[in-house]
C-alpha cells in the first residue's frame, strides 16, 4: 500500500513538474545546467580556445611611421573574430593625431547605432599621424586583477584571455582598463551568417570581449589577422622569447614606447617611432565593407 502511494506520488510529481516547465522555464533551467557544466569544465581550463604553446611569449610591434590609417586591420579583425554589429567600435581603434606621438584631442561617442565617429573611419591625410590601439595584453593587467570571477586571466604565452563562460558582465574590467580596449555586448549578437568564423565562439549579450591577439590562429602557428592584412607591414607579431624573431630585433634596435606604461601595466604592444623615410604605400583608403553596420561615417 505504501509503495503504491509513493509511486502515485512520484507520477503526480513528474506530471506537475512537466506542467510547470513551460518551454521558457525549461529553456532557462536547461541553460542554467549547461552553464553549470561549462563552468565546472572551465575550472579545468578554458575549452573555447586552444592551449598555449609552451615556451612562447607573444608580443606585437606597430610602426607608427608606416601606419597610414587605412583601417584595414579594423575591418578584417571585425570579420575574423565574429564581432557583432554594434554601436561600439570594433576591437581595434585607429586614432588620427596631430603630433607624431600620443593621442590628442577629444571626440564624441555616437548616441545611436549607425551614427559613427571619426575614429571609425576618416579621410586619410598625409599631414596626420595614425595610431591603432587595441588590447595590450598587459603582463600586469588591471582587468585581470579586478575581475571578481576570474573570467579574465593571464595565460602562459602572455595573452590576456576572457573565458566567456565565466564572465558575469559586471564591467569592472572595462572601468579598470587604461586602454579602452574592452567591449561589452550590449545587445544580442548581430552577425550576418555568411561572415561567421567557425573557429571563434559567438558571444551572447551581457558579457565582455576584447582583442584576443587572434588566439585561434596564433596558438595554431599562424599570425594575427591584423598583421596579415596590413599593406605597409606596419604591424609585426611574434615570439618575444625567440631573440632572433623580427619583433625581438625591432624592439631591441628601434626607438619605441609603450602606451601609458607609467601605470605599471607592462603592455605587450610596442610602438616603433624611429622609422623615417621608410618606403611606404599610400593606398586609397578602403570604404567600410558592406553588410557591417555601425561603421558608417
Amino acid at each position, binding site marked *: 500500500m505504501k509503495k503504491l502511494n509513493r509511486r502515485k506520488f512520484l507520477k503526480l510529481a513528474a506530471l506537475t513538474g512537466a506542467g510547470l516547465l513551460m518551454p521558457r522555464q525549461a529553456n532557462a533551467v536547461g541553460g542554467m545546467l549547461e552553464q553549470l557544466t561549462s563552468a565546472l569544465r572551465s575550472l579545468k581550463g578554458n575549452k573555447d580556445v586552444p592551449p598555449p604553446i609552451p615556451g612562447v611569449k607573444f608580443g606585437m610591434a606597430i610602426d607608427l611611421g608606416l601606419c597610414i590609417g587605412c583601417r584595414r586591420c579594423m575591418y578584417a579583425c571585425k570579420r575574423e573574430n565574429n564581432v557583432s554589429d554594434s554601436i561600439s567600435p570594433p576591437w581595434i581603434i585607429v586614432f588620427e593625431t596631430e603630433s607624431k606621438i600620443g593621442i590628442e*584631442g*577629444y571626440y*564624441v*561617442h555616437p548616441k545611436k547605432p549607425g551614427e559613427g565617429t571619426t*575614429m571609425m573611419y576618416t579621410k586619410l591625410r598625409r599631414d596626420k599621424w595614425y595610431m591603432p590601439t587595441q588590447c595590450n595584453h598587459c603582463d600586469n593587467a588591471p582587468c585581470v586583477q579586478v575581475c571578481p*570571477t576570474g573570467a579574465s586571466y593571464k595565460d602562459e604565452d602572455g595573452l590576456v584571455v576572457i573565458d566567456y563562460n565565466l*564572465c558575469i558582465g559586471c564591467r569592472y574590467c572595462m*572601468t579598470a582598463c587604461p586602454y579602452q580596449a574592452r567591449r561589452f555586448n550590449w*545587445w544580442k549578437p548581430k552577425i550576418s551568417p555568411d561572415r561567421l568564423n567557425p573557429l571563434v565562439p559567438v558571444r551572447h549579450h551581457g558579457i565582455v570581449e576584447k582583442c584576443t591577439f587572434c588566439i585561434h590562429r596564433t596558438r595554431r602557428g599562424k599570425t594575427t589577422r591584423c598583421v596579415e592584412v596590413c599593406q605597409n607591414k606596419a604591424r609585426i607579431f611574434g615570439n618575444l622569447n625567440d631573440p632572433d624573431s623580427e619583433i625581438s630585433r625591432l624592439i631591441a634596435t628601434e626607438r619605441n614606447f609603450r602606451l601609458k606604461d607609467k601605470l605599471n601595466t607592462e603592455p605587450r604592444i610596442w610602438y616603433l617611432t624611429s622609422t623615417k623615410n621608410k618606403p611606404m604605400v599610400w593606398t586609397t583608403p578602403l570604404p567600410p565593407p558592406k553588410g557591417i553596420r555601425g561603421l558608417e561615417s
Partner: protein
Amino acid sequence: MEGLKGIIRTLVTGSRAYKLWLTLLFALISVAIVLLYKQSDQGLIVTNMRDPVSWGWYIANFTFLVGVAAAAVVLVVPAYLYHHEGIKDIVLLGEIMAISAVSMCLIFVTIDMGSPERFWHLIPKIGIFNFPQSILAWDVFVLNLYLFLNLFLVTYGLYKMYTDKPYNKKLIWPLILFSIPAAISIHTVTAFIYVGLPSRPFWNAAILAPRFIASAFCSGPALMLILFQVIRKTTRFEVSDRALFKVGEIITYAMSLNLFFLISELYKEHYIETAHIASVEYLWSGLHGHNQLVPWIWTALAFNLTAFLLLLIPKTRMKLSTLNLACILIFAGVYIEKGMGLVFPGFIPSTLGEIYDYFPNALELWISLGVWAAGMLIFTVLAKIAIAIKTGELKAAGK
C-alpha cells in the same frame, strides 16, 4: 506560531495612509519588474550606458546607498559606547535602515550585471571567487556580511524583546562591537573599488575613501532624522527630541569634514592643472562645451553649504523645522554628489579621451525608483514589526 500570526495581522492592519503607501510601493515595484524583463530580454542596450561610460545610474545609486547603510553606525556608537539613552531607543530602527539600504545595494548591483543569472559564479568552489585579488569580490563579501550581521542583531533583539527575556550579552556585545568596523568597511571597500584604478585619475585619489565616510555620515543620518519623525507622527513609537538633536550634531561634524575634503580635492586638481584634471573640469565647469553635469554639482554644493550653515547655528539646528530643511538639503546634495557627481565623471573623458555625455534614460530612472520602493517596503515591514513589538502592541493583539 502565535507570534507569526500576530506579525501577519500587524502587517495587514493599518491606517488608510499605510495601505496607500504599500499600494504605491507595490505599483512602483511592478513597473520596475516589467521594465527589468525588457532589459534582461534585449540586453543593457535599453539603458543609456555605452562602452565609454560602462557604469551609470545603477552603480551611482549603489554607491550612495552603501553610505546610507554604513551610517547606522552613527547610532550604534553613541548608543552602546556612550550610553546615550535617547539614541538607545532608536538604534534598532537604524539597523533596520541599514538592512534595507544594503538590500537595495545588492539589487542595484545585480540589475547592473550583464548576466545576473550567473551570480553563482561568485560562490567559492562552484565558481571562481577571485578573492583577495579583486576588490569587487571583497565588496560582495563585506556587503553580505554586514547584511546578515544586522539581520541577526535585529531579529535576535526583537525576539528577546517579544519573549521578555534578557539578552545574552556574551553573544550580542561582540557582534555590536564588530558591527562598527563592519559598517566602516563596507563604505571603505566600496571606495577602494574606485580608488584602485590607475586608469581613472578622477577616482585614483587617497582622499576618496575618507570623503566617502564623511558624506555617508551626512546622508544616512539625514534620512534617519526624517524617517524617525514620520514614525513618531504615525505610530505610538516614541523618539525623543534630544536624540534627534544629537544626530543633528553628528551630521554637522560630518558635513564640515566632507566640505574640508572637497576643498583638499579641488586644490590638488586646480593648483597645477595637469592633464588629469579633465574629469574634474567636466564635472565643475564643462569640457569642450560638454557641461550637462555642471548645474547638478553646483546645486549639490549650494545645498550642502546651506545645510551646513543651518546646522552650524545652534538656533536653527535645535529647531525641528530648520533641522528638517537641512536634512532634506543634505540628502539631495549628497545624492547628487556621491551618485552622478562621483560615478559619471570618472568615465568622462574615457581613458583614451572619448566624451560620451551619459545621463540615465527613463527606463533606468523607473527601474531605480522601483528598487528604492523595494527598499522602502523592506523598511516599512521590518519597522512595523519592530514597533509593534517594542510598544507591546503585538503581544496585546495576540491575547
